[in-house]
């Protein structure tokens, strides 16, 4: 099974995200971290920090390249949300299926650490993970799949979960969706089936409060918690931005998804720091400031400046280098049907 501790550099398990008012020492040590509060960040393992920064600089590079007219098509960066897949990373196993969505670069990079393959895909160059056919939104590799139609993947995830049940008990299916995607009926058809059939489905909801340009208040009546409850599905809210805390807190819940065939909805209260796609952000100055205040990048840099500095420039340079390399490659070759 997943060994979480291997991946954890600091000794902090997130328990110190409790507020100072909490004076009961034993409780502080043993209690699971309070995932529902933002709390201070704890020191990251190098590996996690590096991955977070890889995603950050990858996404920034994409926006740069778009700005320079170097990229075709569209893209949706996960700026501000990088910590979600990074937190989940060691909780997921190779045999698990992951279904990602339009905002999937962080999901992909967390699973494969393959910036060159992804960038080549987006730029349509040699080495593209899907030969340049898929592009930013349509990626398949091993048991990882993303597609560009909101909600569509949830019923598919249920089917993949049915497969796991029989073919590989203990394996799960993780599907990422946004808050706005709860507008789609497919989501509910899937939740109903998942719970009826006790499919090991982990729905990771990245609730960034906005869908393209539409705030959640105009998109969603009620709450995600209520919607999970509607199907009798377990639910966990995660407001924490701390990778260690999130990971430690979710580990036992994810374990239950595997062992108890019990679907789980995890709602990450997260913040989209960048535009929806390329430059289309109509949020107010205040809204943008609020998002930026919750940016782990800024927060971590302030909390652990040395650690941060020791990696940030290095990873950025690596991404620059990768981008140069990929940009210099010949076009992707597609042997597929053009008949």
């Amino acid at each position: 099974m997943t060994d979480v501790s291997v991946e954890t550099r600091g000794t902090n398990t997130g328990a110190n995200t409790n507020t100072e008012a909490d004076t009961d020492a034993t409780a502080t040590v043993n209690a699971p971290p309070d995932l529902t509060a933002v709390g201070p960040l704890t020191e990251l393992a190098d590996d996690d920090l590096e991955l977070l920064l890889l995603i950050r600089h990858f996404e920034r590079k994409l926006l740069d390249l778009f700005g320079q007219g170097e990229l075709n098509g569209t893209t949706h960066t996960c700026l501000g949300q990088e910590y979600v897949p990074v937190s989940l990373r060691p909780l997921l196993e190779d045999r698990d299926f992951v279904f990602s969505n339009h905002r999937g670069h962080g999901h992909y990079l967390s699973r494969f650490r393959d910036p060159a393959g992804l960038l080549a895909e987006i730029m349509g160059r040699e080495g593209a993970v899907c030969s340049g056919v898929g592009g930013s939104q349509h990626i398949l590799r091993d048991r990882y799949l993303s597609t560009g139609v909101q909600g569509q993947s949830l019923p598919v995830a249920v089917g993949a979960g049915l497969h796991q049940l029989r073919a590989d008990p203990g394996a799960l299916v993780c599907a990422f969706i946004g808050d706005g995607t709860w507008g789609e009926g497919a989501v509910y058809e899937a939740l109903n089936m998942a719970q009826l059939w006790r499919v090991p489905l982990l729905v990771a909801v990245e609730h960034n409060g906005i869908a393209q340009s539409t705030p959640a208040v105009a998109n969603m009546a009620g709450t995600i918690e209520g919607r999970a409850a509607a199907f009798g599905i377990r639910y966990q809210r995660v407001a924490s931005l701390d990778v260690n805390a999130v990971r430690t807190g979710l580990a036992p819940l994810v374990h239950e998804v595997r062992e108890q065939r019990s679907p789980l909805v995890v709602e990450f209260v997260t913040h989209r720091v960048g535009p929806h796609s390329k430059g289309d952000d109509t949020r107010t100055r205040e809204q943008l400031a609020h998002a930026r205040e919750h940016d782990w990048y800024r927060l971590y840099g302030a909390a652990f400046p040395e650690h941060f500095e020791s990696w940030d420039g290095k990873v950025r340079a690596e991404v620059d280098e990768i981008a140069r390399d990929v940009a210099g490659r010949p076009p992707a070759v597609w042997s597929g049907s053009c008949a």
Partner: protein
Amino acid sequence: MRVAENLNQSLHSLLEAEPRAYVLGEDIADPYGGAFKVTKGLSDSYPGRVLTTPISESGIVGAGAGLALAGDVAIVEIMFGDFVALAFDQIVNFASKSVSMYGRRVPMPLVARCPMGGRRGYGATHSQSLQKHFIGAPGLSLYELSPFRDSYELLSEIVEREEPAMLFEDKVLYTSQMFTDGVVDDLLSFDRHPQAPDVARVFVDDPDRYDVVLIAAGGMAHRACEAVRDLLVEEEITALLLVPTRLYPFAAEPLLGTLGAADVICVAEEGTAGGTWGAEVAQQLHQRLWGTLRRPVRLVHSADSVIPSAAHLEERVLVSGDTIRQAVVEALRD
């Protein structure tokens, strides 16, 4: 044996032969065994792999796609094929695309079984033949259940292709008998087309002597047989009937020899007017047989209309054996 029994046995055989196979659908569990009883006995025999589902057409096709993607084989029953409209996105924009959208071939053995057709008085939302709306989605194949072809053979062919497919089943077929031993009735015989074994040939005496070729799939075959008989008896016109099981992509090539020799080619289907399967077939034939054809391929289809519930009104809208016969006679006059 009735067509429904043949299909039921085929599903049993498939579940038996293929341990990765699943069957999903609404109300398919025993003792009910599906609205048309095609899944009878399956859930009792293969409990973990035959799942009765909530009323979620889009969801269950998606779940089938997930199974297929993960390495299983998924057969999904849409109770009335009309409701496959709800799964259009999953079929066209997920399952079919996944085969090639990721830059390499992804096997996706998913079959959506769609009972179609009218003449049972179920009314406008339960009587359609929606085949035509699914033509030309890259990666998606369309098949039609036939009383001339063992459905296990057909299902196996579909599943082996490992691509998303729809199997359309005219509901009126379920209670008709399978044709066997080359016999249709006292007048008509059938065999497999020598160049296209998935196409049945129905003929009067000699499969190589005919004035007219009819092409009709699935439940239209009976009405086409009726037309063949009436044309012979009442008009002294000899017709050959071709009954394909693969609607799309339609393989015209192996049939060109047969078709080129006809005075009239007539494609009959129950779908309503406009954008028909016949138009797709005709398009191919017009391109390939232009110099040979004496007249345009004649299309027979139902009226451009919703399908009424009352029998006498439904009859006015849907194709009958007589519609086909008249179309041929008219065409010959042109």
